[in-house]
């Protein structure tokens, strides 16, 4: 009568789980093996392997001609990368934190974005400028900023902001292979905290295509970066309340996937845009304008934005940082309000 059983029922797992940092590292590693024109430059990328270990092991694998520890001078990191890119190389320039990206403005916005246009197509800039940005790690004013707004405004640049390990790897590979300058924004809080499936087989993802992460019918959440995951949490919470939320991950901020934006609004009639970056002048405004201009007849409620507060940057004390950051609770509240309209 007594049965002793000590087994565990397990589904065979064939796909590895990785975090965003590992996905980024793998993408660069594979591309550097694939194409010897690809090289990495930045502060502490060599011996240290990067302050987040994004290039851990790279110096030993590829040598110091392709993995360069630069002097502490961001403007020259960008300028040197620009020059090398115009001369046939494929540089991946790392700016250690988005908060330090401002000196590269001159070389990237002022120069790189205009090279192809200004040379009438004769010269191009196949460079990637990658940087960790975003808050929620007690980074305070100078290690938490979101910098996308200053770049996606610029024609000639591409701006990518992945949220998941799968997307990060596929999009970074595409960025490295892209013939134009790509600003690749990694949310540092997702580095260790977001874990997801990443297949071993080679794959790339197209820049400029959004991704519907969760299908729904009542309301569209349009988002990117860390906020994607809080949107997913919110959607799951509300499923039980009978509100069907569609979650669209923009993935690329310039160029925006207008088709996907419009089709989700057509489906649900209500759009809530969620981003960590402060609201005024954030990409929520651009998305909202596009929806209003081109999707007016679909709308069943005002296009709404839930975004960061109007203070210059994220403060240090945990009580204050919490006020700045958007979490699933705040998103749930916003969804409820818009749903009720």
């Amino acid at each position, binding site marked *: 009568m007594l049965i002793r059983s000590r087994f565990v029922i397990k589904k065979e797992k064939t796909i590895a789980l990785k975090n965003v940092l590992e996905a980024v590292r793998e993408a660069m590693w594979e591309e550097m093996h694939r194409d010897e024109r690809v090289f990495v430059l930045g502060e502490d990328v060599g011996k240290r392997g990067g302050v987040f270990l994004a290039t851990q092991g790279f110096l030993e694998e590829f040598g110091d001609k392709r993995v360069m520890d630069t002097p502490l001078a961001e403007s020259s990191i960008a300028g040197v990368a620009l020059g090398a890119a115009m001369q046939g190389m494929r540089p991946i320039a790392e700016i250690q934190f988005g908060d330090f990206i401002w000196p590269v403005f001159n070389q990237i916005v002022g120069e790189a974005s205009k090279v192809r246009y200004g040379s009438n197509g004769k010269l191009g800039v196949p460079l990637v400028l990658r940087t960790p940005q975003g808050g929620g790690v007690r980074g305070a004013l100078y290690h938490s900023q979101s910098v996308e707004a200053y770049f996606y405004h610029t024609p000639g640049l591409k701006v990518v902001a992945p949220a998941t390990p799968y997307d990060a790897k596929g999009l970074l590979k595409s960025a490295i292979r892209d013939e134009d300058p790509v600003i690749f924004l990694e949310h540092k809080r997702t580095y260790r905290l977001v874990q997801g499936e990443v297949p071993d087989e080679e794959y790339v993802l197209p820049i400029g295509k959004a991704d519907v992460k969760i299908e729904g019918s009542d309301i569209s959440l349009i988002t990117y970066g860390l906020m994607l995951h809080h949107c997913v949490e919110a959607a799951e919470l509300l499923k039980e309340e009978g509100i069907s939320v569609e979650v669209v991950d923009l993935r690329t901020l310039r160029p925006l996937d207008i088709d996907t934006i419009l089709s989700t609004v057509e489906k649900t009639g209500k759009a809530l845009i969620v981003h960590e970056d402060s609201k005024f002048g954030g990409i929520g405004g651009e998305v909202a304008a596009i929806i209003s201009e081109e999707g007016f007849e679909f709308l069943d409620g005002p296009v709404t934005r839930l975004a960061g507060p109007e203070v210059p940057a994220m403060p*240090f004390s945990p*009580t204050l940082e919490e006020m700045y950051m958007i979490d699933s609770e705040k998103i749930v509240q916003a969804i409820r309000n818009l749903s009720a309209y």
Partner: protein
Amino acid sequence: MSAYKPLQDSKLLEMYETMVLSRILDERIWMLNRQGKAAIVASSQGHEAAQIGSVYALRTGEDQFYIYYRDLAVMLSLGMTPLEIMLGFTAKEGEPLSGARQFPTHGSYGEIGLVNLSNVIATQLPQAVGVGLAMKMQNRQSLVITYFGDGASSAGDTHEAMNFASVHKLPVIFLCENNKYAISVPLRLQMAVDNVADRAQGYGMPGVTVDGTDIVAVYEAVTQAAERARNGSGPTLIEAVVERYLPHTSDDDDSIYRSHEEIENAKKHDPIIKLRTLLLNMDILDDDLERKLYSRATSIVNEATDNADKASYAPRENFYGHVYKGDK
């Protein structure tokens, strides 16, 4: 130790006390980080003589001090209390520099002329030059000193600042605390010259390299630079060579790029021990007095730790104010 011009004995003893207090406070803050109570810490251990020696050569209350994130001992020498400093590291209410909005050591403390606007490297140099410009325009006898590391010396802002100050003969002291590492990047990958001070010639100002662990040498060099600044002769670049005992910050693991021996060797030039030896030889210090000094410093730091621990985090009401003038 170099031959010194007589600094008053009492001043030397005071400097020693400040060094001891700084070291103990620094160690305690590092421990708080290990306990999860201080989210981010950067150590000044090894830099004490360069920082304290320089402040003692200047006029607090009159001169301006544009520091960077590693200048704990400067803050202490200028008169900040260990409790005030600790409130910054633990992000508590009552933090004087930024209301705990910024990383520790950042913000401003007007009464003592302390400014540290951001942790972006080298941005303080052009700002300090601007301060010097204003002082000159206002015909003041004061000067501005700006502190930075060897990494910062590569930044574009640094070049532009030094050039501007030299051209206009501004009352600025550029004090580089060269600990030979910018996080993990060693000096040889940072610059092609042996000394940061070598560049001064390129701008047309004097450049001086001193042993940053010799507090008297630092004091002398800064005194001379101050004289130049106040009499209208313009800026000086002082390079104080020091050692960094700990990783860049609590988020760094220096075992990846520095060997254990190297760090042990570095600690042999401890500025506190150097000054201690001098004071013992001069009979200004004895074992008994030293014990008292350490004991006093420890209880001050213990009290600060306890009080900072009891304090609450920055209040939420303090989130929105001061974006523009007139807010709240």
